[in-house]
C-alpha cells in the first residue's frame, strides 16, 4: 500500500469533515496520478468545493489524510501548502481589484513571499518576463496596466488562473472555471486549460458535461460527501448509481 502511495501525486484517504454533526465529506478516498486531469462532478451540496477547501487547507479535516508528493497536507498551513505546490482557484473570481493586472501577477510571483522578502523585492527583468509570458497565455497582454477591477468577469477568471500559473504549482485546483462565461470565453478557456494541462496535474470541479468530456482523463462523481463513482467519462455516464442520483429525483 505504502509503496503504491508514493506513485501518486495526491492521495486522499478516509477524509472526513463535519460541521456541527453534518458530514460534508464522509470517509472520502481518491488518488491522482502525476499529469492527470481529474474532474469532480456531483449534484449541489455533494461536498465538491469542500474537498478543494480541505486540500488547500482552508478547512481543517476532522479525520483522514491528504498526502501530496510525500507530504501530509492536513497538518500544514495554507501558505505552506501553496509552497508545497498546490494552487487553488476559487469559484467566484477573487483577484485584487485595486491592483493592476501586472501587479496581480507580480504579487503571485513565487519570490518575496516573506515579510522581509516582500520589502526587498525588486521588479527585475526576470519578473517582468515571467509576468508578460503568463499574461500572453491568459489573453491579457493588452490589459497589463489596467486595474483588475475593470476587467470583465471572464477576464478576471483568466487572471486568477494566471495568478496560479505564475506560482508554478504541481497541482492546480480549479473550482468551476467556466461558470458565468460567455460561449466565446468558454471556448477560449477550454483552449487555455488544454495548454495548462500539458505540464500540470489538474483537479477541476465542473458542471458543464460537454466541457468535462473535453478535458477530463478521469471523472470522480461525488454524492453526499462520498465517492459515488469513478472512472472515464463514459464509464460514469453509464453507472446506474450516477443516473439514479442525477435523474432519480
Amino acid at each position, binding site marked *: 500500500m505504502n509503496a503504491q502511495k508514493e506513485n501518486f501525486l495526491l492521495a486522499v484517504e478516509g477524509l472526513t469533515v463535519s460541521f456541527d454533526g453534518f458530514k460534508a465529506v464522509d470517509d472520502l478516498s481518491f488518488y491522482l496520478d502525476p499529469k492527470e486531469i481529474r474532474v469532480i462532478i456531483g449534484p449541489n451540496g455533494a461536498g465538491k468545493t469542500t474537498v478543494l477547501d480541505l486540500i*488547500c487547507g*482552508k478547512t481543517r479535516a476532522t479525520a483522514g489524510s491528504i498526502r501530496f508528493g510525500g507530504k501530509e497536507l492536513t497538518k500544514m*498551513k*495554507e*501558505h505552506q501548502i*501553496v*509552497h508545497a505546490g498546490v*494552487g*487553488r482557484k*476559487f469559484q467566484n473570481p*477573487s*483577484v*485584487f*481589484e*485595486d*491592483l493592476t493586472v501586472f*501587479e*496581480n501577477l*507580480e*504579487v*503571485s510571483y*513565487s519570490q*518575496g*513571499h*516573506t*515579510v522581509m522578502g*516582500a*520589502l*526587498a*523585492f525588486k*521588479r527585475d527583468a526576470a519578473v517582468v518576463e515571467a509576468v508578460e509570458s503568463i499574461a500572453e497565455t491568459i489573453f491579457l497582454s493588452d490589459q497589463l496596466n489596467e*486595474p483588475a*477591477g475593470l476587467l470583465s468577469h471572464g477576464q478576471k477568471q483568466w487572471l*486568477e488562473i494566471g*495568478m496560479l500559473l505564475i*506560482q508554478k504549482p504541481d497541482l492546480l485546483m480549479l473550482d468551476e472555471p467556466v461558470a458565468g462565461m460567455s460561449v466565446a470565453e468558454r471556448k477560449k478557456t477550454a483552449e487555455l486549460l488544454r495548454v495548462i494541462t500539458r505540464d500540470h496535474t489538474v483537479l477541476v470541479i465542473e458542471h458543464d458535461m460537454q466541457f468535462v468530456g473535453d478535458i477530463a482523463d478521469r471523472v470522480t462523481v461525488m454524492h453526499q460527501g462520498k465517492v459515488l463513482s469513478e472512472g472515464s467519462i463514459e464509464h460514469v455516464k453509464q453507472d446506474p448509481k450516477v443516473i439514479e442520483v442525477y435523474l432519480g429525483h
Partner: protein
Amino acid sequence: MKTNSPLQWLTSREGIYYLLLALLLVVVLPLLLDPFRLNMVGKYLTYAFAAIGLVMCWGKAGILSLGQGVFFGLGGYCMAMFLKLEASTPEATKNQSTPGIPDFMDWNQITELPGFWQPFHSFSFTLIAVIAVPVLLAFIIGVAMFKRRVGGVYFAIITQAIAAILTILIIGQQGLTGGVNGITDLQTLMGWNIRTDMAKTTLYFVCVGLLFLCLLVARHVQNAKLGRILVAMRDQENRVRFSGYDVASFKVFVFCLAAGLAGIGGALFTLQVGFMSPSFVGIVPSIEMVVFCALGGRYSLLGGVYGALLVNAAKSGFSESFPELWPYAMGALFIGVVLAFPNGLAGLYERYIMPLEKRLPVIGKYLDKDKPAPQAPPVVSDQLSAEKP
C-alpha cells in the same frame, strides 16, 4: 518606484506634494506663528505619526486598531521615564524621604527605584525603548490575534479592551507609574532645558524632520511589493493566503510598524508638552487618532498628516471661541466625514481639485506628464466584514 533618482521623484506629482508639505511645515508656519502656536502645531504633528501608522495599518491593510493610543502612550512613557529620572536627582529631591527617586514614588512610600525603571537612566536605551516597547507589545498582540485569524470588528474591540486594561493598570499602579496624574514636571533633556521657547522651536523642527523620515519609510513600505500585498490582503485575504503568503505575519508586521510610528510620536509629544499621562493610553485618544486618519483620507499618508493637523487645530480653535459648542462641531465632523466623504480630504482633493489643476495652463500640463497613481479605490467598502471569524 518608477523614478530612479531622488531629484526625479521630487519633481513628480507625488514629490511636489511632499515638497509643499515641507514648505508649509518648515517655512510658512514657523514664519507665521509665534513660538507658543508653533509649539501647538508641534504637538499636533506628534499625532500625525500615529495617523501615518493608521494609514498603513487601517487604510492599506484594512486592520482597524483602536489601540493606537496605547502605543503612542507607551512611547511617551518611555521618554517621560528618562526625563523624570533626569529631573529626580538626589539634589532636586532632597526633601523626600528617599531622595533620588521620582516624587510620586516617594508619595507612595516606595523607597527604591523599581527594576524596570533602572535602564531608563540611559538615553540610548530610552531611544531604543521608545520604539521597541510599543513594537514588542504590538508583536505579542499581533501574533496572538492574527495567527488566530481575529480580524475586523473583533480586532477593533479587543484592541479597545487592551487600551482599557492598560489605562486601569497604569492608574492603579500609581507608585510605579504616577497614576492618573501621569509623569509630570519634566524639565531637561541631557541637561538641556526643554521648556524655553528656543528649545520648543528646536524640538518642533526635530519633530518635522522625524515626521518626514517616517513618511519616507512608510512610503517605501507602501511602494514595495509589501505595500501591494497589504492592499491585496485588505481586499482578498484568502487569495493572498492561497497565493502562498503567511497573511498573519504581514499583518503583524504592519501592526508593529504602526505601533513603532505611534511610539515615536508619543516620545516627541512628551518632549514638547513636558509630561505624559494615562489619558493618552485610553480609548478616547485612540479613537481620535482614527478620526485624524479618516478625515485626512485613510488611504493617503499625507492625508493622515493633514488630518491630524486640521482636526487638532479645529479643536483648539473651536474650544477657544465656543467652548460649549466644540463637541457638537467635532461630532458633526466625524459623522460628516464618514457619510459624505469616506475617502477624507485626500479623496475630496482627487475628485474636485485635481481636475481643476489640468485647466491651469502651465502647471496642468506639467503635472499631467505623470499619471497620478490612484490612491483610493473608487468605492470604499470594508472587506473586513466578510472576514468575521
